[in-house]
């Protein structure tokens, strides 16, 4: 055989990939119109905010902390106007700029927090669910106790503790606080799923054939369980945004110098309300509603397509063709 063979034929492998992609998205394509509409509108909204976050410096007319331009200070609590489409705050910051940069903050923190939650919660759930035993019972006891507790309170306490420690307030603190609140959720969901999968015949068969636990987990259990994670993670992301905004509202979010945060802005707007000033609170608040709605739509849409209980296939319309000729009687 030639030592330097030409490029290996890519077609079979490439086609296999395409087919796999087709298979994976089949549930979405087969789903009823409403689930798809929900899913795609959610994707559009989320994508919009991602664009805002990533390209904030290019999109926003001003910086989030900027209170003057060309030596002239911006109006304080100025009405929405041509120069400031969403008005200005009491500190002369442009509201729209803060909304746009706020997207950056929200997504940054939530992505970090989710990544940490998954990294901690999923493996713990996998191991605990698969191996059982004392470790499992111990973890379950702790996680169940935490799970029943309000997320906000867990996050507040952790944020409070971290803020007074060397880490200080900021993005990392907020992310850790949110992670602490959600790890029990991922642990629980993954563990329950692992337990139900563990008893499935094909896993049993693998074990009977002598597969090592690590292999069994990796090849069978993990992929089966991980399929459930996207809808949960998306809905969780939605909840995490709300949690972050709540932390910001109470003053436990990020420092004002680090970035704009929507919840914090709403809390500053409370005192403006008494004077009837509505734009400082309305726009950040609407941003929260919109982003969370977008994420929830994606999650619900995914749920609707993947969850077999909810899945609803499209039925085609058809007509009965006339039967060709009568059947004969016996001779």
């Amino acid at each position: 055989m030639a030592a330097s063979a030409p490029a290996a034929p890519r077609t079979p492998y490439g086609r296999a990939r395409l087919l796999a992609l087709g298979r994976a998205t089949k549930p979405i394509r087969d789903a009823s119109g409403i689930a798809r509409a929900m899913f795609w509108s959610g994707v559009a909204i989320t994508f919009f905010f991602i664009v805002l976050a990533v390209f904030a410096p290019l999109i926003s007319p001003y910086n989030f902390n900027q209170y003057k331009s060309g030596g002239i200070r911006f109006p304080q609590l100025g009405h929405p106007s041509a120069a400031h489409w969403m008005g200005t705050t009491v500190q002369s910051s442009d509201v729209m700029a803060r909304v746009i940069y706020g997207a950056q903050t929200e997504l940054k923190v939530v992505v970090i927090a989710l990544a940490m939650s998954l990294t901690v919660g999923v493996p713990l759930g996998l191991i605990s669910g698969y191996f059982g035993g004392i470790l499992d019972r111990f973890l379950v006891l702790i996680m169940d106790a935490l799970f029943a507790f309000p997320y906000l309170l867990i996050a507040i306490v952790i944020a409070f503790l971290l803020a007074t420690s060397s880490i200080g307030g900021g993005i990392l603190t907020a992310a850790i606080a949110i992670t602490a609140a959600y790890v029990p959720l991922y642990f629980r969901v993954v563990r329950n799923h692992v337990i139900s999968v563990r008893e499935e015949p094909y896993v049993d068969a693998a074990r009977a054939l002598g597969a090592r636990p690590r292999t069994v987990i990796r090849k069978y259990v993990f992929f089966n369980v991980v399929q459930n994670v996207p809808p949960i993670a998306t809905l969780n992301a939605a909840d995490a945004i709300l949690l972050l905004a709540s932390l910001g509202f109470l003053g436990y979010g990020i420092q004002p110098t680090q970035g704009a945060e929507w919840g914090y802005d709403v809390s500053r707007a409370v005192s403006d309300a008494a004077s009837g000033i509505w734009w400082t609170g309305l726009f950040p608040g609407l941003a929260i509603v919109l982003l969370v709605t977008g994420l929830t739509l994606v999650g619900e849409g995914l749920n609707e397509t993947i969850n077999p209980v909810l899945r609803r296939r499209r039925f085609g319309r058809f007509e009965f063709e006339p039967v060709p000729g009568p059947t004969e009687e016996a001779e």
Partner: protein
Amino acid sequence: MTDPILQVKDLRVYYGTPGKPVRAVDGVSLEIGESEVVGLVGESGCGKSTLGRGILGLLPEGARADGEVLFGGRNLVTMSPKAVRNMRGPELGLIFQEPMTRLNPLLRISDHFTETLQQHEPKLTDAEMRRRSLETLGRMGIPPTRFRQYPHEFSGGMRQRIMIALALVLRPKLLVADEPTTSLDVIVEGQILALLADLKRNFGTALLLITHNLGIVAESCDRMAVMYAGRIAEEGNVREVFADPSHPYTRELLRSTISLDTTELHSIPGAPPNLIDPPPGCRFHPRCPNAMQVCNQLEPIEQRSDGRRVFCWLHGPSARMPAGGEAPLEREAIGVADEA
């Protein structure tokens, strides 16, 4: 037979899909006489359950029916759903395969009976309803002391008896039983079958027994129909069909059953066909050991003789057979890979 109570004529039930419909029942005709016990046999997916449900009009979403189901002189296929619903209970009954999940876990057994009786015979007094319910339950072997218990307090076999009693309390003329004993163990199965076989004696109810188990058909039924891929292959008196099957499929089925005499396992090679695009001609021809040239060209025509109906070119009218049709059909060997 004397006037049949149910006449199914060219019934078709198709399920809608994003593409072409699934032809689950594709032109079935069947008759059931008064107090008769008819068995409907076939492999999984042959359409027998769909047929049973289709008779009662209990089709799932996306499914539609065409043809005639004549009961009491009226066509259930074209009747309004409301009218058909009114007949379910007092005229037609259906019992299902898994008794464990067919009773509302939050309601007592007595509530189930009261609900059914109030729906269809609202003029009855409470005492009357109670008496009728207890009587029917008693015939099924459920003592009155357990009347007010919850479903989870009963075993599978007992729940099936309760389901049968619920179906019979209104004395329907026809009871359709869709695999009633498949999920029960053999001993309980025997008891339930005995109950069902007694229906005509105790209640005068006709029974359509749907199953894949030839054994219970042999035990309990007067007549039997064999279904394959949405169509009837053969139909006739049970003893006669068992003794002398006309259709190759029936013959192969009987050979595949296991008894104490079995020395070697026999199976029919291949798998049931795709019901969206069924094979042309006779649907069994890809797997039939006796297939002829005509079998993949023309659909077989019904042949009747001595109370037996067959849909097979082996017995088909030679007048309708095209030239050269009787020559054996050349087919590729059915490999294991072709299954499903």
